[in-house]
């Protein structure tokens, strides 16, 4: 239960202390986790965090303060701190911080799971994890499965936000998550490691959707085959079908992140870095006409689902790249004010301890019309990279690298045997410019995206269909 009066109280104190803007957010995160290794529960835990975060603008400087001591005196002190440290830091300020005018929400919403967490007993949830272990263990034939770790998470995020510009939003969002890590090993052949995070807003209905108990054995048989059968990827230039899972990650890393306006303006320069996108680049070409990337917080079930951001601005889809052009950035009210636009509702805070900053939500590559077979059929020689493990991208989001895990050779329009650890290492512009066909197999993947200081991990989806890129030289992972 959130005591909304405490948030109004904080706002009143801030107003009395001369803040030109004030915002109070009572934010509660509850989580249950169960961890299992090789079929045995090693522990379970709950995490219950709740407190108030207060943000103010004083003398043009931004101050943020948070406390979990939810009595009036502690809240008053927290507001006083936010105001006083903003004041003292304002002496260094060159340009005052302002927020763009915005149409703010006055709303109350709640995500209702189709199957609530209570629909399964704890025993049944544990049984499900045991089934995963059993199915995984039965899948290996020659190799060993020395470690199979799973964790199950259910959490509920509840918050009430009010600000001095009239915004007032209450929301409740439940989320479910599964994580696993496995190692398939043969002492003579080495090992293959795979981990994956699954997550959605909603409830237990997602276990039925993911069907991990069915997909895992099939995947593990592939990992075993990689150990025994995979060959070196081709070293000459080839066509590459980049699988949906990798496309999802690529758009998150090389479209979503560089489109964050705070990053473009240098606010995250010492942390998450800068962006190859500079002010004034809206309308410049970044890829082929097949490239449209959207960030949409309003997708039902999205791990990054929300209807109002943490500045109470209504959420909407943002077309970051549109038909190959840099089209729109992710904004909060501060960056919107600098760009002379309206905020598009991209401010999120991980918990009460965190200031709202610009974040992605559910970011995806707009699907096309090709089936996977059609993407492959006219490739003379190529590689289909379906999944990955290692990846990274530079801090301007330009040079990126993905190493395929499940990856196949393509010859004369047909998928052949497995190739081991092909490396796709290319620039953002090369990737998007090389795309000549886009699949219709849109799928979303879950992640916890990190940004800010102190670092904030927020749930996001990233997705895409498989796409075809032409004439790429693949690398090989080090041994």
């Amino acid at each position, binding site marked *: 239960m959130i005591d909304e009066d405490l948030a109004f109280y904080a706002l009143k104190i801030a107003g009395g202390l001369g803040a030109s803007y004030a915002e109070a957010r009572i934010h509660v995160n509850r989580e249950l986790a169960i961890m299992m290794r090789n079929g045995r529960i090693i522990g379970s835990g*709950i995490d219950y965090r709740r407190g108030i975060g207060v943000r103010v603008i004083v003398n043009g400087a931004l101050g943020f303060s948070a406390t979990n001591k939810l009595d009036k005196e502690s809240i008053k002190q927290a507001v006083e701190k936010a105001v006083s440290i903003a004041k003292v830091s304002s*002496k260094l300020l060159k340009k005052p911080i302002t927020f763009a005018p915005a149409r703010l929400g006055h709303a109350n919403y709640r995500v209702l799971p189709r199957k609530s967490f209570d629909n399964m007993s704890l025993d049944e949830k*544990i049984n499900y994890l045991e089934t995963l272990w059993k199915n995984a263990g039965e899948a290996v034939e020659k190799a060993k499965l020395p470690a199979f770790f799973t964790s199950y998470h259910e959490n509920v995020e509840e918050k009430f936000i009010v600000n001095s510009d009239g915004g007032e939003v209450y929301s409740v969002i439940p989320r479910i998550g599964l994580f696993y890590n*496995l190692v398939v090993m043969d002492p003579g052949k080495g090992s293959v490691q795979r981990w994956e995070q699954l997550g959605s807003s909603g409830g237990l209905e997602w276990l039925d959707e993911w069907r991990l108990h069915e997909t895992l054995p099939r995947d593990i048989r592939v990992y075993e085959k990689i150990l025994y059968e995979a060959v070196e990827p081709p070293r000459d230039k080839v066509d590459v079908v980049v699988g949906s899972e990798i496309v999802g990650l690529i758009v998150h890393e090389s479209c979503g992140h560089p489109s964050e306006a705070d990053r473009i303006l240098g*606010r995250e320069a010492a942390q998450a870095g800068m962006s190859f996108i500079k002010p004034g680049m809206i309308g410049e070409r970044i890829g082929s006409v097949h490239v449209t990337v959207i960030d949409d917080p309003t997708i039902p079930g999205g791990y990054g689902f929300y209807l109002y951001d943490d500045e109470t601005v209504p959420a909407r889809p943002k077309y970051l790249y549109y038909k190959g052009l840099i089209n729109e950035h992710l904004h909060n009210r501060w960056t919107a004010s600098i760009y002379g636009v309206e905020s598009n509702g991209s401010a999120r805070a991980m918990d009460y301890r965190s*200031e709202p900053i610009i974040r992605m939500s559910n970011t995806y590559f707009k699907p096309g019309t090709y089936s996977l077979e059609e993407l492959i059929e006219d490739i003379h020689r190529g590689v289909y990279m379906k999944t990955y493990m290692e990846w990274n991208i530079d801090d301007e989001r330009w040079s990126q690298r993905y190493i395929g895990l499940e990856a196949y050779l393509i010859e004369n329009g047909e998928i052949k045997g497995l190739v081991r650890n092909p490396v796709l290492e290319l620039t953002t512009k090369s990737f998007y410019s090389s795309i000549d066909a886009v699949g219709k197999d849109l799928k979303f993947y879950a992640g916890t995206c990190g940004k800010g200081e102190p670092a904030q991990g927020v749930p996001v989806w990233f997705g895409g269909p498989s796409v075809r890129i032409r004439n790429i030289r693949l690398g090989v992972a080090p041994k």
Partner: protein
Amino acid sequence: MKREELLGIARKILDKAVKKGYEEVMVLVRDTRESMLKIANSEPSVAQYWDMLSIELYLVKNKRIIVAGLEPSSIDELDKPLKELLSIAVRIEESPLYAPLPEPARTEPLTGIYDPGIEEALSNPGELGELVVEAAHREGIDRLAGMIDLKITGKALVTSKGGEYYEEATMMESYLRAFADPDGSGQWSTCSRRLDKGKLVEAAGIAARYAVDSRNRISVEPGVYDIVFSPMIMGNLVATITRMASAFMVYMGMSMFMKHRPGDRVASESFTLIDDPRLAELPGSTSFDDEGVPTRRKPVIEKGVFKTLLHNTRTAAKMGGETTGNAGWIMPHPWNLVVPPGEASLEELIGEVRKGLLINNNWYTRLQNSVEGVFSTITRDALFLIENGEIKAPVKKIRVAYTFPNLLQNIELIGRKQYDVKWWEIPWPTRIPYILVRKVHTSKHTA
């Protein structure tokens, strides 16, 4: 809050949990005040302040383990979660990681971990911001970004075995990234238990000089290079390796140490890596771990030989051996990492390189396979080409794409000056010099 107040809260919660029927209980209460100034474009982007009381519970019922992190407004508010957790405990199975709580032990208090200067500076981080901005701009940079973080933490631990522990400590951490147009940048960090303006100014100066010196970068082809790693990038790589030395990571199947036993040679003889919680100057220092076990200095790798995984009581019981005083109730972790110095100056390290690179900083280290230690990481900030023992030119970004076993084996020379570093990519305070590694594989985009 002071010692008796925090211990009092912890005791009351412990009593409550025992009365509810838990057989073994640990309660860890932390009271934290913290302020942070974030800087971008040489001005403050936000000033932040936290005042928080957090409660962590470790509960055992019939060898079932439950951990909880709670933030109640009163101790009575804990009745409900304690009851709920009991209902979970009776329904899960006995944990293979169960081990009895350690007996209470006498801990040797650390001196020098509390500095009243931090308390005074907590309300005005702006003054320190001014100091670093000025120091960096003296070197002729165009912009500075970064943060300065000040913290006071009181932590109280009580256990149902009768152990009671308390420690109050302060810390200062900062990292700074300087930019010099058109393309120069440098990043450095520092950390301390004390308010140390000298260290802040030094970090700002190093970041700024790297920025100025790395302007007008040229491209180099990827290949095999001898690389002089700065404490920033080596701190990140060493942290990644040490994370895998946590017994829990081995247990989960996420560690290159799955393939090794203590006594195995895993690195060149010149390399030693120590976890040193007794090093009071670094902000990871503590006299007791989260189980109340007295902490001690221990090598993870000594003269190239793998010495020990990092254990808590449970991982030690499960995997053999004794706790190393590194709890984490679930995941053991290091406190402060130290790579002891060698004898070479930075100039001498560079002088040893015929064709190679000097790397200031990196980020985004990811593994294709933890068990095999296959990784890559991408440079950010200053990067220089070295030819015939001299720095020739600043160069554009490149990846180190290699394996940790090879990297460790190819360590050649250790610098003599250590730096105290910690930032986003270095999660534990680390005291480490510049290090020369031979024949490192690098990589770059092909299109």
